[in-house]
């Protein structure tokens, strides 16, 4: 039972209002690491369908500079 309750639920399946969109970079930012890499669905618990959409959205957001392609964490920022 304790194991079952640990199971992660896909954020986008849980909340149908929230669509995966490249413009909504604030949401996308939760699915990339500090370095800017896309976090695998086995970590975030996103279902495969939404993970596919997410990947596409993140790549689009990178293209138009809403999200970084990579981030140098060794360098201090701000």
């Amino acid at each position, binding site marked *: 039972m304790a194991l079952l309750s640990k199971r992660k639920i896909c954020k986008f399946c849980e909340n149908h209002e929230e669509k995966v*969109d*490249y*413009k*909504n*970079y*604030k*949401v996308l930012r939760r699915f990339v690491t500090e370095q800017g890499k896309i976090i695998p669905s086995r970590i975030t618990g996103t279902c495969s369908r939404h993970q596919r959409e997410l990947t596409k959205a993140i790549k*689009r957001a*990178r*293209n*138009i*500079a*809403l*999200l*970084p*392609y990579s981030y140098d964490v060794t360098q201090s920022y701000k």
Partner: protein
Amino acid sequence: MRYYETLFVVNPNIEQEKFMQLIQAVKGEIARLNGAILNFEDWGKRRLAYPIKKHRYGSYILIQLESENISLVKELEGWMRLNQGILAYMTVVLDEKPTDQSVVASQVAPE
């Protein structure tokens, strides 16, 4: 009818007057290519995730449009590429007709 969404970044250092001229030019170009603008949104100046042509900031403009012209995207992007004031652009195809709800208000309000 196809629906598109173009998001582009304008050099933030150009004067207000030049900026307005540029916006008019973009609108004119879309009209010339038989496109109809459904939504127009100015997201304002915001920080870029990485520098583009040495710029750290950019003014984002979102335009949702519809057209029957299949070469519209190619021609519009070709035109934007040559425009000095536009730092970056991206056009995506929309699955369905966009509603007029504001993206800025719902998602990308300035920090």
